């Protein structure tokens, strides 16, 4: 085992050495995720989106030139049951027939120091666009990939997600904690 273990860091160094230059990075989708936690009658409900696209050009040294864009297929939501999934696709929630995707486009990336960044941008869901700020922590994994983890709170009612009989926040809370994890390969 020992010789093998010592091999891993050197591989990582080789991969990092191979990187350099700049350009749009392909996010490693399989290892990345967009999850959320909402509150329902006091308990937490976990979910995630199965299908989404990301276009990220993250330059730690040049935050001003960094960009991040996401397109989330809302119909690909993964929730407690088929019943809840088909419910949130309906018009009172996401209305995926009319608004199939949610979009986020960054407008500014700020370096807060210590591997912490702030991505400001515009989020569009169900025909409503709002300015949001996503705090992100950046780390390197053993293979030299950059792992960006961000979390922000989204108020579902700002986007008319869960209208009418669902607007009562005692049953489903307004606040939804969105957690993003993006794994970016070393820049080629």
């Amino acid at each position, binding site marked *: 085992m020992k010789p093998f273990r010592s091999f891993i860091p050197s591989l990582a160094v080789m991969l990092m050495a191979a990187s350099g230059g700049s350009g749009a990075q392909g996010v490693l989708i399989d290892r990345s995720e967009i999850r959320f936690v909402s509150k329902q009658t006091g308990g937490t*409900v976990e979910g995630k989106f199965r299908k989404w696209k990301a276009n990220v050009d993250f330059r730690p040294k040049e935050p001003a030139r960094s960009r991040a864009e996401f397109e989330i297929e809302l119909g690909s939501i993964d929730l*407690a049951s088929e*019943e809840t999934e088909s419910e949130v696709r309906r018009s009172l929630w996401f209305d995926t027939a009319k608004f199939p995707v949610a979009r986020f486009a960054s407008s500014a990336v700020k370096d807060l120091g210590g591997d912490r960044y702030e991505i400001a941008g515009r989020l569009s869901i169900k025909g409503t666009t709002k300015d949001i700020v996503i705090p992100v922590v950046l780390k390197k994994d053993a293979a030299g990939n950059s792992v960006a983890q961000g979390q922000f709170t989204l108020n579902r009612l700002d986007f008319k997600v869960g209208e009418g009989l669902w607007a009562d926040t005692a049953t489903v809370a307004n606040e939804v904690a969105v957690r993003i994890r993006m794994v970016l390969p070393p820049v080629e």
Partner: protein
Amino acid sequence: MRYTGTAVALHWLTACLIVCGFAVGLWMTGLAFGPQKLRWHAYHKWIGISVFLLTALRMTWRWRHPPPPQVPLPEWQRRAAAATHILLYALMFLIPLSGWTYSSATGVSVVYLGLFPLPDLVAKDKTLAAVLKAVHGTLNYTLLALVIVHVGAALKHHIVDRDGVLARMLPSWPRA
């Protein structure tokens, strides 16, 4: 010889909760999806967790205060009664546990009475959730069958045998 007042109270309180929990469970699954359905699911879970806690309390009480001696019974009836009671106790633990695990598997955490968050017993897993849903349902219908046997036997003792077995578990209002 009667059961202690505490044992009688715990028995009937649990019985009421089981009837309510079962009825709510049957009814809520037929509701149209909406906030009301989610709320009734929460109440159903609270009832189940209450049964679980009361059963734990009850077994502790039973261990400290053994039940009154048995009335003379044919051997098969004695065995059938013992088996039914053991199974009833087992189900009073297993049914809430299966429901709680099922809820965890669907990614919905349980907050007892809306105040006390319970840990998730398993990670979110749709395949497991489908299995647990079936298990929870089957255990409940098993409980229904056992409760019918239990109530039937109690009534038989009271009406046919007239041996005072049911009276031992009734609240101790003045009796002849």
